[in-house]
């Protein structure tokens, strides 16, 4: 390692301000790098540029209204956020969601996982110089966004999962669109792998870069594919199954190397597993059946009933004016979002508004590992390391 000597003989390092508007920081992240030549001596991560006070805002909304702000945290996986929050409130209410809604939830969150991993793959590849992968990934993601638009009316801020079930009955013909995805996507994944998996430049930029040992990863609370790339098989879907995940047959890809390449392989394999789950879900979803729990006073009544039944009209009015009040207590619900363990802590004081809503977001915790991954390595590897952690700044700053 070379150090710059000042005329007085003191060692001199340079501080480089990377971000907050640097394209490879995937949002507004600022990293203060203390450099000795091209070597990173110290990396200090500065976040908070996108802080919008979502947890505080939730305390002023009713339980149903708060669903909409969960979308805005992880904007690449809004349905995973919806799911974590809805499951937490349902746990608080001891509400049983109909199987049909549970399977549709599984199907859509797995499509979300693929969509999110596609954005990750595209942006990570473009950071490291592979332009065309980015264009292919976004082409495929468009198909998924069209499905989300079809079922919920929104491409990104879906708010499709509601407390007790789903917002709407999915439209006719939506399963054909999903079947198209199941049929075409595996060969598209092969195309990305053709471009990258054995590409010598890709291997040189990712193998042995951004090393994270299993011990460090667990200590730092890393989760999701970033943890599984270090040889730990922790996946919430397997460890604490929710929304009927225990009825699905799928593998959790694990690699032991702990470098950027291992995490890349994990995520690509995970997309293939997600397709497997989507396929099974398509077979499981009954053609007909309720999509909302039977819980008067919590789940809004059907429109037709409001025209004929007095109680339905009263419940409708009460739900949309004052909301519903779960019993006092606290619950913590974890789900496996595309980025890792997404935890939702909801505390109720018996009023119609959450007393406290806390989101344990995986990006926030995973980003802590960056310092460990880059210190002592080259500055070019900082970009690969930020990319491989798959961070979403909206979720970090909340």
């Amino acid at each position, binding site marked *: 390692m070379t150090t710059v000597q000042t005329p007085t003989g003191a060692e001199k390092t340079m501080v480089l301000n990377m971000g907050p508007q640097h394209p490879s920081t995937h949002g507004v992240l600022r990293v203060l790098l203390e450099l000795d030549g091209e070597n990173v001596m110290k990396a200090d991560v500065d*976040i*908070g540029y996108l*802080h919008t*006070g979502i*947890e*505080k*805002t939730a*305390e*002023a909304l009713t339980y149903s209204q708060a669903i909409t702000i969960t979308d805005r945290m992880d904007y690449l996986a809004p349905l995973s956020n919806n799911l974590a929050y809805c499951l937490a409130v349902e*746990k*608080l209410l*001891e509400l049983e969601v109909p199987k049909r809604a549970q399977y549709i939830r599984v199907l859509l969150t797995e499509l979300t996982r693929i969509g999110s991993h596609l954005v990750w793959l595209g942006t990570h590849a473009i950071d490291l110089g592979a332009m065309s992968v980015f264009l292919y990934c976004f082409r495929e993601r468009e198909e998924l966004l069209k499905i989300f638009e079809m079922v919920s009316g929104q491409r990104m801020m879906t708010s499709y999962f509601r407390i007790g079930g789903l917002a709407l009955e999915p439209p006719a013909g939506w399963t054909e669109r999903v079947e198209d995805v199941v049929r075409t996507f595996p060969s598209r994944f092969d195309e990305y792998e053709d471009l990258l998996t054995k590409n010598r430049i890709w291997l040189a930029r990712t193998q042995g870069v951004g090393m994270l040992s299993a011990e460090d990863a*667990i*200590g*730092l*609370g890393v989760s999701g594919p970033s943890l599984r790339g270090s040889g*730990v098989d*922790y996946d919430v879907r397997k*460890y*604490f199954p929710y929304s009927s995940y225990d009825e699905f047959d799928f593998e959790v890809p694990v690699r032991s190397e702990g470098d950027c390449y291992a995490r890349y392989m994990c995520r690509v394999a995970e997309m293939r597993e997600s397709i497997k789950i989507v396929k099974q879900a398509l077979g499981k979803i009954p053609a007909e059946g309720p999509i909302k729990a039977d819980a008067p006073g919590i789940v809004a009544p059907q429109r037709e009933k409001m025209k004929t039944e007095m109680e339905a009209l009263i419940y409708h009015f009460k739900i949309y004016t004052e909301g519903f009040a779960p019993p006092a*207590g*606290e*619950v*913590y619900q*974890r789900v496996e979002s595309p980025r890792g*363990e997404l*935890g939702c*802590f909801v*505390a109720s004081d018996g009023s119609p508004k959450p*007393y*406290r809503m*806390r989101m*344990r977001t995986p990006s*926030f*915790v995973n980003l*802590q590992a960056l310092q460990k991954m880059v210190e002592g390595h080259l500055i070019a590897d900082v970009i690969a390391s930020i990319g491989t952690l798959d961070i979403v700044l909206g979720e970090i*700053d*909340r």
Partner: protein
Amino acid sequence: MTETPDLEQNPAVAKIRAWRPEAVSGLVFFRGELTVLVPREHLRPLAEFLRGDKQLAFTYLSDVTGMDRFPIEPRFELNYHLLSMSRKDSLRLRVALAGDDPHIETVIPVWPTANWHEREIFDLFGIRFDGHPNLRRMLLPEDWEGYPLRKDYPTEGPR
């Protein structure tokens, strides 16, 4: 309704009781989740014990989060969500802190992940963590006044 199991039979509770009975000031079981109430001075030793015990192996700290019960005293609550990967079990530790001078010993040496969680809680609740190496504002600007997640801080902002 989930049946309330015999909480004393829980391996974590039994082990803690045998190790240091005064480290548990109460147990709460709600919706299938077990919460151990811990007096402030016992949190750090208890954390070390739960992480180090070969059988319990709470090696993973999922989350640390604060809560403000204003105007009830003790006003603040800290919730530590622990996870044991080998036993597929989770546990919540809860510490109550008085409002006049909320501070507690850091658990960073036990679980390094607590670093950012504690900083965030300091930033938004104003709870200090003794021994934290870098207790600065995190999400808010460094010259921000007040602690937004406290209940006496208006949702619309300070002005």
